[in-house]
């Protein structure tokens, strides 16, 4: 498959898109791990939400 005389522009478009999507996925995955770790740490120290003691429905 030939990308013609403007191959650089096409390759750059796909590279930028892949990079931005990869950064977005990595950021969300890292954030999830961080929040889970902090929550586990707080629960281990005996801190629990009121809702967890009750109906378990608050954010």
């Amino acid at each position, binding site marked *: 498959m030939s990308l013609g005389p403007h191959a650089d522009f096409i390759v750059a478009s796909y590279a*930028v*898109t892949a990079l931005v999507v990869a950064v*977005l996925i990595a950021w969300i995955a890292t*954030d999830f791990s961080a*929040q889970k770790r902090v929550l586990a740490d707080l629960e281990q120290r005996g801190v629990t*939400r009121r809702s967890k003691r009750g109906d378990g429905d608050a954010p």
Partner: protein
Amino acid sequence: MAVIDLANPTRFLTLVDRVLPWLAGVTALVFAYGLYRVLGAPDDYQQGATVKIMFLHVPAAWLGMMGWSVMTVAALGTLVWRHPLADVAGKSAAPIGAAFTFICLVTGALWGRPTWGTYWVWDARLTSVLVLFLLYLGMLALYWAAEDPNRGARAAAILALVGAVNIPIIKFSVEWWNTLHQPASIMRAGGAAIDASILTPLLIMALAFTLLFFTLHFAAMRNEILRRRVRTMRMMQARGA
């Protein structure tokens, strides 16, 4: 389970944990098929192979606008019903919408140089999309600056509603003003003006990007709910509860 039950954060988290791996898998499969169809798509008779940029640029543009539309609906949920999950949805959509708008601007510039002979012109379509990106940055700054999520939520909801005015301006800018950007060629009266050999891969890529948006949005909403739980627990810990 009724739809209204999903507005409960705990039930929403349970659903996301169950659905997210499947959604991510389907997204990857549709992307793989879409890219396969892109590789097989013919060159445009005028633009040559640069038409391949369209398979990224157009879906990114749609999702940049959809991200703000999601935030607008979420803003109504925040201001009218004051539901915390509405603000979670709005806040989580902001960085994803900003990323897709950024992709739209960059791929548009890279497509414009070989097609128009310039990376950028201050025409109505390009400028209104740049305004959308700046609105996203303002929204992110507003969220990150707010120490109390509830206070930030109201300000962000108002900004989302004000910024929603820009969405129809982007859509109709190519009809209302004389622009270098081409007029609508897919969603227009009389049907799409693109041959099926290019339109079909474009629609598959649009579906893949839409699935990616919702996969990332659900994952980001889960993170935000957890972040608010951490904040609540830290406050309780500080109070010695």
